[in-house]
């Protein structure tokens, strides 16, 4: 690897290295060339793809066992229409970051306060931001003697930079150690509420991912930069690398790593009900995809209702701009099956992950896979149906008001009445 493999470097130093490395060494293209593919459909890396496939498989699986009961049309599931692409597209397009909202923090003499609150030692941003102060020690180890702050309404670029590297760090645990800014793996024990760090390390596997690096495509960002930020996303694996330049923060690629970490803790705590096993169908995935279908969902639920993100707070915080959204994310990985699988989405064919305006129906909305499974005929201009009114003559309205001290006067309280009746054709109640 290149000079950025020094695990003792501060995060800032690492990120400066990533900017050049990602563009040149992996894909052999310049940032400018990479931008040409912006917005085009590029296959997700195997870890990302197979993690979401494992979720789709748990919620809308293939069900050959329903053929006899309900008919052959009920056999295919979400994977047959590539629903994982729906989840990946939605997560990678749900937040826009703009360059003018970013600013390197400034050193202040004041302790605490500011939009980020007290950036003291127990704030995970403290270390990241500390490396950017004039007095900060790029070699690490020097305690902060001042406070860094942002101007109200601006964000630190470091929130959106990530380099999780298992190769240069030696292991998954080593990568997390470096990311948190610790000197040694042993220190992780203090952060993780696990009794046996070695066992946690054995359980933790990022599958096909050796390294995930996210940086601004044009890092370092000029002070006067404006517009939608573009991100350089690099995923390295044993046999292949994926390099993309995309708009919006690539959350979809980060969440699966979080799920692997949560899954390892889930297994360590013995919350699984089934024995995990390698899953060749999702070979690119990590710890998470080894769980049984139901255990995958139980594992995700520990994020919402099991205290997982509280226990894992310090180790997960450096991986995401904000950890708090993870409960929302678990809501979404479930709910998006409704917006994707059970709508007409799969009928968009090969346009289904294009930009919204370029998506086109290629299958009649009444005939997509899920519609055949629900017997919904699709949108219509109207329906012939028998109907009736339940209250003959309409509702009563006898509340006394200043204008209507007795039973309601059918005349309206102002002259809008005539116009209203003419224009709407509405019947009086």
């Amino acid at each position: 690897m290149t000079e950025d493999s020094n695990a003792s470097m501060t995060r800032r130093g690492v990120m400066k290295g990533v900017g050049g490395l990602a563009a040149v060494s992996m894909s052999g293209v310049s940032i400018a060339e990479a931008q040409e593919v912006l917005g085009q459909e590029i296959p997700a890396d195997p870890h990302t793809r197979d993690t979401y496939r494992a979720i789709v498989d748990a919620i809308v699986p293939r069900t050959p066992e329903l053929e006899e009961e309900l008919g052959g049309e009920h056999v295919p599931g979400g994977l047959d229409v590539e629903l994982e692409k729906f989840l990946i597209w939605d997560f990678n397009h749900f937040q826009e970051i703009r360059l003018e909202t970013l600013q390197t923090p400034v050193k202040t003499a004041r302790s605490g306060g500011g939009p980020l609150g007290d950036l003291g030692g127990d704030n995970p941003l403290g270390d990241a931001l500390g490396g950017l102060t004039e007095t900060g020690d790029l070699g690490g180890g020097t305690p902060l003697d001042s406070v860094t702050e942002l101007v109200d309404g601006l964000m630190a670029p470091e929130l959106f930079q990530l380099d999780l590297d298992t190769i240069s760090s030696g292991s998954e645990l080593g990568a997390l150690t470096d990311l948190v800014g610790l000197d040694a793996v042993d220190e992780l024990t203090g952060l993780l509420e696990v009794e046996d760090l070695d066992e946690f390390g054995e359980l933790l596997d990022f599958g096909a991912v050796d390294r995930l690096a996210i940086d601004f495509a044009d890092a370092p960002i000029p002070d006067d930069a404006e517009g939608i930020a573009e991100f350089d996303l690099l995923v390295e694996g044993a046999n292949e690398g994926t390099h993309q330049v995309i708009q919006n923060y690539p959350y979809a690629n980060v969440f699966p790593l979080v799920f692997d970490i949560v899954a390892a803790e889930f297994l360590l705590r013995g919350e699984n009900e089934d024995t995990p096993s390698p899953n060749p169908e999702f070979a690119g995935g990590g710890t998470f995809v080894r769980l049984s279908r139901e255990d995958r969902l139980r594992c995700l639920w520990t994020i919402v209702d099991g205290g997982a993100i509280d226990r894992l707070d310090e180790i997960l915080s450096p991986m995401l701009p904000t950890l708090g959204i993870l409960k929302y994310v678990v809501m979404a990985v479930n709910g998006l099956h409704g917006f994707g699988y059970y709508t007409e989405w799969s009928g968009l064919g090969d346009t289904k992950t294009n930009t919204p305006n370029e998506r086109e129906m290629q299958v009649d909305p009444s005939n997509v896979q899920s519609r055949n499974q629900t017997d919904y005929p699709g949108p219509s201009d109207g329906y012939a149906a028998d109907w009736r009114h339940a209250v003959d003559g309409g509702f009563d309205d006898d509340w006394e008001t200043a204008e209507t001290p007795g039973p309601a006067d059918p005349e309206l309280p102002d002259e809008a009445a005539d116009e209203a009746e003419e224009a709407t054709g509405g019947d009086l109640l």
Partner: protein
Amino acid sequence: MKDPDVVVVGAGADGPVAAWKLARDHGVDVLLLEAGPFYGNEQWPEPHVDSGGTVSTDPDDLDGKLLDEQFTHREAEANDPTYGYLRVGPSNSARAPWFRNLHQNAFIWQVSAVGGTSTHYFSNHPRGYPTAFDDQPHWPDEVSYADMVPYHRLNEEITSTQQAPMTAREEVFIEGASQEKSGEYPLLEDLNVTETGWRPQPNAVEVPGKETSNGQPLDSDYEGSFSYDDGFRGDTLVGDHFQGSSTPVDAPVREKARKSSNIGYVPRALDTNDNPNQGNVAIRPNTYVTDIHTAEGAGNLEATGVEIRDTWSGATQTVEADTVVLAGGCIETPRLWLNSGLPDDGWVGKGLTTHWFDWVVGVYDDDTVADINPDRQHMDPYVGQNSAVRFDKPGVGGLEDIGMSPGLVSFADYLFSEAGYSFDTPTDPDEPWDTRGYIVGKELKRRMANYRQTKAILVLTDDMPRQENGVSLDDTFSDEHGPVPKVRYEPGEEDDERRDELARIAANIHKNAGASHVHRAEWPPLLLHMQSSMRIGKVLDFAGEAKNVNRLFVADHSALANGVGGPNPTNSGQANALRIADHIGDRYF
């Protein structure tokens, strides 16, 4: 319009209401600003790919057939929160939606567009319960229910509000609810609800098929066209209002059956420009307001205008006005207030209510439905209006019978829960539901295979405003308009109790009607019926004017002091906007 008398920020359900009233009855010139797109307007023929025009003042700009092209009635294309055309985000569909930081298992469902969230509402227009206005200490004495009623009456006329039609699906609800059938509740025949019972929805949709294309009644034998051009008038009984609803197809915008505010009020607001005796209304979409300008007044701050940002070009501009009216909704109104640095005495953005929804699902055998509806085999959740019959219990909340298309049904019935996965979630045998929580896997596919015999009942709880719930500025994320809103909603213990009571009533209605299986989704917070985050009595005076800033009014649902008891809030929000517009006119024009 260079010098409007009033700037209204937000053209959602309420902004056009206030704009119309100010122009029509008070001779005021109004600039109505909207952050999202303007559908069905010739100035913006391709609102998602091209910036189009700047402002619309001519009612002839409105084009119903253009609206038909844009509202495709497809679910994902309309309702997906990231890419759907009915989302909260810039008109440019290549861009991401506007981010709100939500740290919980919850979902915010709003729309940025002229018409706002009313572009996808079910158009239910019950009045708030009288007790919510008259019997609760946090609503000022100056506004009694009797003061609201004239404005309800006006709003109901403007929006064609009337009783909804009963179709096959509603007959099943009535079977389970009505004391004249298998249920126990009386029919309520008064618009002002003080007792417990069931009734048709008062809703803002015209009568079904009041004129059909072949002169025959709209019934199951009807084989004619549903096109306005062929002579069809009125509602076409499609249950896809959440996709935008532009039926009857080919109808002019103002003749669409469902009166979302872009149908019911926007054409009228633009009509004022053709009347020399009235004020003028200009509507400018694609315009985000980023700051409220103020000056030191006599003893109080005074609003003097706003700073705007074009969402396509990024160009900014100051608009001066005599009075500023905020109508951006329960999230954006307080966010703008806070980003403008206006005074906050503790209730700005707080007290958010959302009817602490829940969702109780019944699955029915074919024979059961056939017994209730001898002429039909299915309930067909997509036929008829999305919600046409309801139950009311003042002091507790209400219920609504719901039918929707399958993508929305799968999400709402089975994929949105706070109870965990049903395979691990025990059900108390003393409760009237058979299962609860997420339904996934083989069981999900089984349930969805029975979509046409499935119906849900929405629980709308009278949740109390609590100061810890609401909107603040996020300290992590900013977008081009400043720090993003951070939103929080957790129910109180008594809210939970009222919700449980309503869920039991809903389950028993299903069981009375003969449901073979009853499922309680046990929703987490769904922030849709948002109200009361800028409460009259706390942040605002009884006229809707800010206590701490003169000439600054709030005329959207955030001004309501509570959840109006549980009934759908649109009628109350719009009636209140009409009322506040009169106070603005009386005070300053």
